[in-house]
Structures are given as C-alpha cells and as structure tokens.
C-alpha cells in the first residue's frame, strides 16, 4: 500500500502535527515503507483464529469502588501554562 501526500496530510492533521508541503512529500514514501513492512503480516493465514487483544494470560484486575485519590487541585494545575481560580485556561474552543 502506498500513501499519497494527501493521506499523510490527513494523518498529520488527525495527530495535530503541523507539516509543510516539503515534509509531507518527504514522509509519504517513508510511511508507505513502514506500512509495507507491517503488511507482511497479512501473508499469515488467520482464518479461524480469534483476534487477540492481549498477549498475557491473566485477567484484568478490578478495584473496589472507594474514593482513594484526588483533592489536590494545586498539583493538578501545576503544569498548566495558564490557570485561573482552579480552572485550566485554554484558547477558546467553541462550536
């Protein structure tokens, strides 16, 4: 499978990575190579094989429904570029 420049632009946009035209041009064949490499897996016959969501044979651990965390607003906001009165402040995002 080969990716076009348009495909790469779409993926970049979905990942919120800004990319100029030259970079898209450069990355299209590289990404195509990676996909080509991974596509070798499709040569394996997987008929009648259940999809595998995990490779370890243990069950998911559950926790009791107890409040054991939270209550540290200051720490939560410590890395925020901007905050006010306990809120994160971000550029306006509204529909």
């Amino acid at each position, binding site marked *: 499978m080969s990716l076009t420049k348009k495909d790469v632009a*779409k993926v970049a*946009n*979905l990942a*919120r990575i800004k990319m100029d035209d030259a970079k898209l041009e450069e990355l299209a064949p590289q990404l195509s190579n990676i996909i080509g490499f991974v596509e070798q897996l499709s040569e394996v016959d997987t008929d009648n094989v259940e999809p595998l*969501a*995990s490779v*370890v044979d*243990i*069950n*998911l*651990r*559950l*926790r*009791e*429904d*107890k*409040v*054991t*965390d*939270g*209550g540290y*607003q200051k*720490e*939560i*906001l410590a890395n925020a570029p*901007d905050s*006010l*009165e*306990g*809120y*994160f*402040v*971000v*550029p*306006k*995002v*509204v*529909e």
Partner: protein
Amino acid sequence: MSALIKGETGDWEIVIGMEIHAQVTAESKLFSGSATSFGAEQNTQVSFVDAAMPGMLPVLNKLCVEQAVKTGLGLNAKINETSIFARKNYFYADLPQGYQISQFEDPIVGEGKIEIDLPDGTTKDIGITRLHLEQDAGKSIHDQHPTKSYVDLNRSGCALMEIVSEPDIRGPEEAAAYINKIRMILRYLETCDGNMDEGSMRADVNISVRHPGDELGTRAEIKNVNSVKAIQQAIDFEVERQIDHIESGNKVVQETRLWDPVKMETRSMRSKEEAHDYRYFPDPDLLPLVLEDGLIEKMKATLPELPDQKKHRFMNDYGLSLYDSSVLIAEKSRAEYFEAVANDNDAPESAKLAANWVINELLGALKKDEKRLADSPISAEQLGGLINLITDNTISGKIAKDVFAEMYSSGKDAAAIVEEKGLKQVTDTGEIEAIVDKVIADNPDNVEKYKGGKDKLFGFFVGQVMKETGGKANPAMVNELLKKKLS
C-alpha cells in the same frame, strides 16, 4: 402512533435511533479513585490518572462493571462474558488523554429490548443495540472570557454507560416515551440517577426521514438535547428541515448538528467532520474484561421488579388499565404508595378505587401544590382508610371527596373526620324510605309528569332525597327505593 408527515412528494416516515449516555452511580471514577459527586469545587476531584499525567495507569472499578451488567439485564439484553476496552482518539481541551477509553467491537452488553408506553394507550418494543462502558470528558466553560475557555476535569473519567437503540423510534412521542422508560429502568435499578438537569443522563438523537417502505434515509446526529422537551422540539425541527431539503431537490448530508434551544433550531457542526475518524484500537493499558464466574447470576438475583414487570402485574393482578398502570409505575415510590393503599382493603373493587384516588385526587392535588409524593400530607395508610370507608358503604364517593380535601389540609384520618362532621352514609332502609315518601308526597306534580313518561325527572327525585339527607343517603339504595315507589 407512528404519525406520517405529509409532504409535497407524499407521506414521510420519521426514523429515529438514540444514544443515551447515563452516568453510572458509583462513589469513584471508572479507572481512578477520585470522587464523582456533583457540584464539587473545580479540579478537586481529579487524580493524576484523570489528568492523564505520563505513566499513570487505569484500574477498572468493579462496581461500575456490576452496574453495567445489572443495567444490561434490566434492558433484557445479552451480557457478554468478555469485553474489550478500546481507545477512541480525538483532541479536545477537556479530554486530557487525547483519547477516550470506551468499548468498540466488543461491548459488555449486546442486544436487548424494552417496551415503551405511548400516549394513545398502546405499547411498542424498541430494540437495544448495545450498552458499553466509557469515560466521561471534563467540562468546558465558554462564556466567562471573550477569547479563553475554562476547563474543569472533575467529570473527566466518571463512568458512563452508552445505551444505543435500534432505529425503531418513529416520532417525537415515541422518542419521549423511550427516554422516559430508559430513565425509569435506570432509576429502578439504581444504576444511574437519571438526572438530566445535572447532566447525569444525556441523549444524542439520530434522525432521518423516508417514504414508508423505502430504505433508511441519511441521518443527522443531533447533540445538546438535554431534556425530554428539547428532544421533541429538536425532532420536530429537524424532520421539517430534512423534508424541505429533500423536496427542494437536495440530499441530506450525514453530519453532526447542534440543537440551539434559544433559536429553536439545529445547526451543522462542521468542525466535527474530521473528528469522526476516531481510529479505535484496543487499549494496551487494559486487558480484556472477563466477567468473574457467576457474576451474571449474582446480579440477576439483585434485580428489583422492573417497571414493565410491575406494569403487567398491576394490569393482571389488580385489573388496572394500561394507562393507570403506566402512570403508577413511573416512579418506584409511587408504585409502592399505590400498593400500600390497595393492599389495605380486601374488597375486589378497592384496587381500581385506590388507583383512581392516587392518580386523580392525590397526584392531582400534589401537582397543584408543586409537592412531591414524599411530602404528601396523606399517608398511604390514611388513603387506604378512606377507601375502606367507601367500600364498606360508610360514606359515598361524593362525600369521600370532601373528606379527602379535609384530610389533605389537616392530615387527619378519614374515620375521625367522618365521625366529627357526622358524614356517615345513611344506609338504614327505614330512614331513607321515610325521606323518599316525603319527597314523593311534596311533589305530586312531578310525580305525575314522571309517570306520564318524563323519565329525566328521576334525577330530580334523587337530588331532592340527597338534599334532605345532606348528601349522606346511600345512592344505590335511594335509586332502588325511588324506582320501586314511583313505578
């Protein structure tokens, strides 16, 4: 009930499917130990997991799993022993992870169905496609600053159940009946408080139109409909918009639209288009969820009698109509109140009387005063006492209404009021007969006219007897005696 809409190109049928997001009733979040209570100070119920700090790992809440299973059973649905959490990728300021942990191909609950009650007194089955567990996002506030949004992550990571219906809903009434029934089931099960005002239950509505018998039309997804009324208004608007659009030669585009309750219209959310490419994949931080042996049976044993079971039991055991039954089951406490009233009396007609008195008199009076049933000045036992007095002929139904009014304002027992005011029905044949004789003797003209064929005058005689007895004569006995004496 599936009302067709007349258009220029023929009749149109409305096709609706709903996605309801219900916040799971639990103390802590789906994957972290921070609290979930509503109305806390901003960002105080946030752990490093909820804020998506690097290296934090999600640990699933056992109760949320049980609540989802219980809800699935309440929706008569198939419970999947194995389900898988997947990442739904999109960017938004109130989603710190950059993805929502949800379930995609393998949800915890599969197909089910519920029965909805329609205003015309019929019922209809609506299919449930699935129910899955997922994280809620945080909350953004946009109206405090001209160029900034404020973000509170308290809600971030709270457990949601997304309940998806089949496109079986055929109009605004059915949509309202569906959401009401889902809310009722959740409240009976105590798996979600169903409070739409606080956002613990929210709905997205998928709407399309078609000519009856055609393939499904292209749908629009309406967001931001936060009350049953808004859902109905949004459907009305959107259906008209789509029909106009198609009949003027255009095609409906599959898109997300936002309901604006102020302008009463739906608007396209163009910015959402790209975001629909969610690139789901199994969350590598979480193993598949395999339900512990016996969990489904254990949850089955905890199920209360569900609204529809209760409804059918009221119809079968008490002989109530579908309408009365569905009014009574609307709230668990209401149904319990009714049963306490009805079971207080052995007379066969007492259950229907109890239903009438609860629905028409008590609920009517409470509604007028904007009171809840829990604040009723008349207890179930007291109302049962009043109905006893009716069924054993101590008072007539008409007098009972006066007694009820007095009970409602004073909180006294019916028997005490009847005693105090001397309202006991006269059932002594001799006493009534004497009055009947007197009324006949006092009105010779009317007796003659009645005998001459003026049947309507019978009511006049009943009225006179009632007047003489202050309304206390047993109406059945009055009728019987009058008929005998006038023939």
